[in-house]
């Protein structure tokens, strides 16, 4: 059967088992995503330290780039959403955005080729940090009792509706928010990686299939099309980092808003 030039590849449907990695140094949880998180933290800290040292009045190329990135986060994410008093939250938002962006783009970069946040545990951690931040912001702005009252009971609700509104607001503000924040990032990364794998594994199988040249043409087209999907994933990785940060800023802003 196999008289072609190429040895046909084995086919397996990409699935959940492609997201599992072996541990290193004999420890099961020291796997690939774990090291990616460590590397990305070092990368982000090092990048911002390098970008921000020895700032000058007349900026060079490095400083222009740094100011452009910083201004993007400062103006569109922090100032427009939080409003006055946004400078206090700026370091957190800058760190959050760049950390998520680097981790998402690991999915398209050589050596790594795996988006860290397609493992849900890391994303739960990120959402937990944002959850603690916006609750702490509200408690610091209003005190625990007033903040809690504000967030479970909107103003001017008639008492007859309290039995309906209070559980709904509690659910929406303290449970649904962090869960949706986490699941949105996780599922986007997971689905994108899965789609790329399906195109590449299926395309590779069809390309090396012997006996029918049309299958090989289809496989080649599928692999070429996967480059477009890589481009789409670069955009989705940026968009999800942006959305995660903008929603964190939005939650902080609703916690510290005075009339709410």
């Amino acid at each position, binding site marked *: 059967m196999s008289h072609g030039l190429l040895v046909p590849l084995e086919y397996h449907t990409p699935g959940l088992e492609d997201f599992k990695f072996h541990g290193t140094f004999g420890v099961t949880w020291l796997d690939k995503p774990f090291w990616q998180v460590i590397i990305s933290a070092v990368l982000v800290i090092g990048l911002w330290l390098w970008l921000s040292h020895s700032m000058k009045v007349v900026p060079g190329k490095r400083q222009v780039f740094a100011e452009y990135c910083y201004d993007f986060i400062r103006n569109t994410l922090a100032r427009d959403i939080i409003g006055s008093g946004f400078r206090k939250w700026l370091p957190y938002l800058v760190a959050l955005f760049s950390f998520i962006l680097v981790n998402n783009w690991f999915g398209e970069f050589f050596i790594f080729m795996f988006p860290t946040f397609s493992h849900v545990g890391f994303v739960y951690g990120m959402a937990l940090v944002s959850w603690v931040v916006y609750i702490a912001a509200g408690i610091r702005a209003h005190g625990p009792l007033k903040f809690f009252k504000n967030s479970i009971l909107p103003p001017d609700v008639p008492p007859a509706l309290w039995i309906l509104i209070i559980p709904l607001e509690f659910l929406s503000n303290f449970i649904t928010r962090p869960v949706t924040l986490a699941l949105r990032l996780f599922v986007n990364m997971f689905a994108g990686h899965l789609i790329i794998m399906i195109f590449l594994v299926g395309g590779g199988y069809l390309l090396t*299939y012997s006996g029918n040249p049309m299958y090989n043409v289809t496989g080649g087209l599928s692999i070429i099309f996967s480059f477009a999907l890589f481009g789409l994933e670069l955009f989705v990785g940026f968009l999800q980092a942006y959305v995660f940060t*903008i929603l964190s800023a939005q939650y902080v802003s609703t916690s510290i808003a005075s009339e709410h």
Partner: protein
Amino acid sequence: MVPMLIGGSLNAIGYGIATLGPGIGVAMIFAAVINGTARQPEAKPAMMSTAFIGFAVVEALALFGFALAFIVS
């Protein structure tokens, strides 16, 4: 001569149908942004950040469907 058999559950089809709602929702959000930008181009940045919050909230529904299609199998 079937190179790849498609197996698995009907969850994938259910998820495909479920994406219609969030798809229409996202389309309406960005249609409104395009309309608004055409009427008042200088208001675009303000509309874009609001649109992305709305987009994220609507898109979460489609993503829940995706996660559930994997969990319930």
